[in-house]
């Protein structure tokens, strides 16, 4: 009888994985864009649950806050303002190029999966999942903050410049062209 906590983590993971797969299929297959957006929100929420089960609480909270709470809202706004109608999937008969892309990428992924599994079996070890060790080091957020502001300070600052650029770009691109006033 495997020990209780590992049984629980396996059970939780398999449940979440099944739900995520199902909801992802629904995202891609739904005809109505708003339905897809809502399924995407559920998907992101479930993924955040997976991150939380991996003891990455900060990333899980940020995922819901930024991704599910802002990016998908943006998608919804655009869908509603453009008043998009439901559409169907394109047929696979024309465009063999894309079908080949899909098949090749799937094969590539299976190869990489096989390579990763053929090494020596790693569990999630090294005590990095030990909750007490993380608490003693100050908590997940503290550890991430220390690393982010020391080793990764350059990408951090550059990311903020990137966000500023994206804001300006989005506003400029989406603006209506004003007709110049003839004086």
């Amino acid at each position, binding site marked *: 009888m495997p020990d209780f906590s590992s049984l629980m983590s396996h059970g939780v993971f398999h449940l979440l994985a099944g739900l995520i797969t199902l909801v992802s299929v629904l995202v891609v297959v739904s005809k*109505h864009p708003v339905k897809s957006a*809502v399924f995407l929100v559920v998907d992101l929420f479930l993924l955040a649950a997976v991150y939380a089960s991996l003891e990455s609480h900060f990333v899980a909270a940020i995922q819901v806050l930024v991704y599910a709470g802002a990016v998908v*809202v943006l998608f919804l706004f655009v869908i509603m303002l453009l008043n998009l109608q439901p559409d169907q999937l394109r047929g696979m008969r024309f465009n063999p190029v894309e079908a080949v892309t899909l098949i090749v990428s799937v094969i590539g992924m299976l190869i990489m999966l096989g390579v990763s599994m053929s090494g020596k079996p790693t569990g999630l070890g090294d005590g990095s999942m030990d909750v007490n060790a993380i608490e003693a080091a100050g*908590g997940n*957020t503290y550890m991430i903050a220390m690393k982010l502001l020391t080793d990764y300070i350059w990408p951090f600052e550059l990311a903020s410049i990137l966000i500023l650029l994206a804001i300006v770009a989005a506003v400029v691109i989406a603006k209506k062209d004003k007709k110049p006033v003839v004086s």
Partner: protein
Amino acid sequence: MGLTADEFTIQFISTVVKFSILAVMLLQVPPVMLLVERRIPAFMQRRKGPNRVGLFKFRLYGVMQALADTIKLIFKEEVVPEGAQKVFYHLAPVFSVFPAFLIAMAIPYGPDIQVLGQTIPLSVVRLDVGFLFIFAISSLAVYGVTIAGWASNNKYALLGSLRASAQMISYEIPLGMSLIPIVLIYGSLDLNKIVEAQTTFLKWGIFLSPISFLLFLIAMFAETNRTPFDLSEAEGELVAGFHTEYNSTKFAAFFLGEYVSMFVLSCLASTVFFGGWQVPFFDVRALDQLVGLPGVGALVGFGSLLMKAAFFMWLYVWVRWTIPRFRYDQLMNLGWKYMIPLGLINVVATALVLAAVWFK
């Protein structure tokens, strides 16, 4: 996880019990607010509010009005508009109610109690990123408003919902940013730790960071779509905004969601700024030994939190009936051009002060 089976069972059962008690408690808030919302402004305006409804000639100052209103709402006929999107029309109230209840799970309602040798925190879940969880879930509340308006097949409902959701998104930023200085001061994202750090009266959040309190208060009003920011439900402008086409139980659900999220944000404000379950000049946790009964400290702490939350709810009602409503462009101006820069300055100033204090 490292828990044995018995520890896990105790934690699990205690979580279920806590959640049930919390859910029942939160469901009592809207009926009470139904009454409070009418009687208190009546007193402020020198008139009597509803005081006629009675049960068996038992008038009791209009307490039964809440019961009458609830029964009326439930028994109204449910009319689904013709072109409404089937699934989303029925799903939208869920997105409004669900986040409010989820947020309530991260707030500490009392000091830790000891049950069967295990320490059980009195928040339904004890998260080390409690703050972020609360903001993350409150961003999900936008979906209820957006989908409700869109699914109603009504131009005015759509307009109202887009305005309301744009307002909610815009004010999420000051809501979060105003609480960053609090996190800096108390050094933790965990709400239990923040409450435990507010030991003396002068260490309450409101004294350590008054500008945050001001910003959070304004953002709190805007997030729950309450006056002076309630133009999305303004009568006379947009009929009833995003919930125009909703009646009977679904309208009750939106109503429930709004009041529960008001209550939950009030609890959050009292947790962060007013000391949560702490009572000033008094150590609630030592009460157990003084009185000799286990759990008395927790009850007193819980009562103290409820009183502070009740103060904020009264403030909500008071402001609603006193201040006129903002225009939409004034509202967006306030959010983006005044509150966000003020919030940023607040964060930088707090960081500078803390750096000076720590490194002197």
